[in-house]
């Protein structure tokens, strides 16, 4: 008897997905000598935006000036292109597995509005944290771990440990 899935969608086997992800990461290291990243693209965009809107301020600032033209590291643009690729690849996958749909994903126990507020706040915190740690889960944690970086492991443990605690604090939002 054929079992038909009424709801739910097909996902890749996580180990297969992880393995392929690892291969992509490996290829990135071999080709560029550096790992991947995502928060870097956001940072580059912010720096560019600020320097366009308020160039004098950007140059004076201790933080923006690090990433502006003369000191610009080619990796900054690389990450932006990579992020475009992420969007494209994810879109393809969503298309393939029929997951394309505009929606606000939230636990039935809360409203959409609450979910959106938390998403925004969570993003802001993550933005701050990723700058402090100079990377996010992809850049610092994952890529860092792949090259056995001590900082990578520390950041990974800090993120997941803290997330574990706070997930239970905000349990109502999720389950």
């Amino acid at each position, binding site marked *: 008897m054929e079992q038909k899935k009424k709801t739910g969608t097909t996902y890749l086997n996580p180990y297969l997905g992880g393995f392929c992800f690892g291969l992509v990461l*490996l290829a990135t*290291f071999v080709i560029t000598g550096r790992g991947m990243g995502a*928060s870097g693209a956001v940072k580059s965009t912010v720096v560019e935006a600020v320097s366009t809107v308020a160039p004098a301020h950007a140059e004076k600032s201790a933080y923006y000036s690090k990433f502006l033209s003369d000191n610009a590291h080619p990796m900054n643009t*690389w990450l932006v292109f990579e992020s*475009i690729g992420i*969007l494209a690849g994810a879109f393809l996958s969503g298309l393939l597995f029929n997951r394309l749909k505009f929606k606000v994903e939230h636990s039935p126990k809360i409203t959409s509005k609450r979910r959106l507020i938390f*998403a925004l706040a969570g*993003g802001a915190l993550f933005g701050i944290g990723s700058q402090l740690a100079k990377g*996010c889960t992809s850049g610092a944690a994952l890529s860092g771990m792949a090259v056995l*970086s001590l900082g990578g492991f520390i950041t990974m443990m800090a993120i997941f440990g803290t997330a574990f605690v706070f997930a239970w604090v905000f349990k109502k939002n999720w389950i």
Partner: protein
Amino acid sequence: MGVIPESWNNVFAVLLGMGFGFVLEGSGFSSSRKIIGTFFGYDFVVLKVFFTAAITAMIGLLYLSHIGWLDFSLLYIHPTYLASAIIGGIVMGMGFAMGGYCPGTSFCGIAIGKIDALLFVAGLFIGVLIFSEAFPLLEKLYNSGNLGHKLVSDSLGISKSLFAFLLTVVAIGMFFGATWLERKVKKVEY
């Protein structure tokens, strides 16, 4: 590493990013409730994908280094700034628990139309802006505890290969544990 001519770099960036995005979305990382499942025990996909990817890449890099195809010393090792790594990680963890995303997965979420992912990314921009403006206050923390490009295997005093082996064993142990736990935990509709 200069294997490819400069002009191709960005092309590869897009291609590699597409691989990243495809695999991530395909594994379900575009869904915040699925991602958060690791912390409640109903879906350990994050654990499985993350650690499988880490050990695959790690073992791959070490093999390439051992046979001489790759010079490990030329790889970029994420530098260790002790205090900011920990505190940054904690702040990110909070953001993760509240938003259910990280930057990479939020991009995946946006790509398939998740509005909450969009708000998360908006938050990211705001967060980066806040940090940049507040940098003078945070500068000291940002730069503190610089141990350089330190390897975890060096801190433990073991070889890279031994560490990779041990991590593989630990990861596999976690996978079996996760599978066992998933069966025991109450099912959640998401």
